[in-house]
């Protein structure tokens, strides 16, 4: 493949990456409003209509699991997860005055961080997949909504896959294309 073809592939990949991110953010906004509504209805049912609403608690909990992991996946798109830039300060002091070397070392460190993330997410995807298969086999259902426990539990599996995709895109798509298309 020549350089132009590679650039086109990278652009297409970035477009797909952005599309997934956009869908994630819309779903996240819907989930936040849904959570507010469910929890508020819960208070109303209990104190205004005197009707117990355990189903609302369960629905809120399940939505929350999806919200957290989907939020984590969307945060991976822009590499927004909490990290500590201690090494930047240390390197700045160690490599005083040599800007080129500083940037090179820092880039290598950042690449290592992304590769470690990809490796771990792949491991988690496999390990959690095995666990989820066991849950599906057992066929456990939730107490109040009567849905299979696989529904909330699969949030971790699906979102790990999405995070993995975002992280791979972050590693392989050149920065100028990420900025241009993202």
């Amino acid at each position, binding site marked *: 493949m020549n350089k132009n073809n590679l650039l086109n592939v990278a652009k297409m990949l970035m477009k797909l990456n952005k599309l997934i991110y956009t869908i994630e*953010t819309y779903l*996240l*906004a819907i*989930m*936040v*409003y849904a*959570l*507010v509504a469910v*929890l*508020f209805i*819960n*208070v109303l049912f209990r*104190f205004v209509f005197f009707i117990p609403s355990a189903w609302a*608690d369960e629905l*809120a*909990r*399940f939505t*929350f*699991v999806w*919200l*957290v*992991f*989907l*939020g*984590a*996946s*969307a*945060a991976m798109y822009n590499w*927004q*997860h*909490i*990290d*500590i*830039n*201690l*090494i*930047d*300060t240390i390197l700045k002091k160690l490599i005083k005055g040599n800007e080129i070397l500083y940037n090179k070392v820092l880039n290598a*460190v*950042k690449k*290592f*961080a992304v590769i*470690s*993330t990809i490796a*771990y*997410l792949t*491991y*988690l995807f496999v*390990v*959690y997949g*095995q*666990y*989820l298969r*066991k849950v599906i086999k057992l066929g456990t259902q939730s107490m109040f909504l009567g849905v299979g426990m696989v529904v*909330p*539990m699969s949030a*971790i599996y699906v979102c790990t896959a999405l995070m993995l995709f975002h992280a791979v895109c972050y590693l392989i798509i050149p920065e100028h294309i990420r900025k241009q298309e993202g």
Partner: protein
Amino acid sequence: MTTLLIFLGLFFGLCLLLRVPAVIAMGIGAAAAFAYNGFPTSQMSQALYNQLDSLPFLAIPMFIFAGAIMEQGQISDALIKWIQFFIGRFRGSLGLVTIFASAAFGVITGSAMATISAIGRIVGPSLEKNGYSKSYIGALLASSGFLGIMIPPSIPGIMFASASGEKTSEVWISTIGAGLLFVVLFSIVNYFKVGRFETKKEVQRLTPSKYVRTALVTTWSTLPAIIMPIIIFGGIYSGVFTPTEAGAVSCVYGLAYIILRIIIRRSNTTAKVLMQSAIAAALSTGTVVILASFANAAGRVITLAGVSTAMTQFITTNIDNPYIYLLLVNIIYLFVGTFLEVNCAILILVPLLLPPARALGIDPIHFGAITLVNLSVGNLTPPFAQGIFMASKVVGVSFVEIVSEIWPFLIVALLIIAVVTYFPLLSLFLVR
């Protein structure tokens, strides 16, 4: 103990030296510890899910979202004007406004970084115009910003409650005393420091009737912000709703306020802006709460390997004085707090440090107050203080320049840590 060393070694090594995201470093550390002990990985997967399948954590996105909505309603501007009206005549009043507004804004957001950014954006330019140096503004903002963690609702408070199994509402109350002490002592520091900057102001004399009228008008425009804590705390402590539901109620209240603003004042807040606020809240939740999920996996392996029990036995055998143990805890927290994010530090350290504290007869709620105060002050302690980094971004001044002005605030903060540690009554008088 090898399990603990493997986990902590990998976590700190990857996180601090190689910039691996904290959540991934935690996951790698936990996975390695599981593998070392030969425990089934299904335990790890189960722990990841179980931690989030709980109602108390749900309060986090709710309060973040409520804060974002109120910000859209320009409530922080109104709050600042209100505080300025009442204390604007005192010497160093703009500095005082920053401190009081940070504490008040904490009630809405519960986050130090959000407070520094929101208050700094509004107060920063006025402080500069009135002759305050940029480095002092940065120091003042960084120091006042963490008052948002002390004054409930506080997100780190929810994290502590989750890590310790205590009631969120009690953990929240435990830091109010310390928070107020911070407000008073920081105001005194500001009073003595600002003489260099503040020029003598022309005080506008108001007749009593005009004063009352202006006070009422200012209060009226700030009313939505004043009512919010009344709803939250009135609801929680009268037993009408849980802290999580209080979060949802404050979101509904905030949305109602925004809709009224659109109708009455023809404000330009659009559905798109509200959508963006929800997305921002969800992203913050994703990056913060996912830490709890992975910390639970780490906690599971530490418990299964018997580390907590061994550590408690080791500490209680060697230290029989709770005050000496608390001194040790303070040193660990202050050190870790300089480079580790508050929530992350709570989730890793509390399961390890709390069991020995319980065995030594220390009240877990008191321990919670010590934890929150210490880790908040960690935001201020160089060389890696997050609060100073944030303030330097907001004000546009270097980290080193802020550090040169932060020492008086830091000394006061260390003094308050000692008071909180050795006078449990300050944290427990509203709880026990």
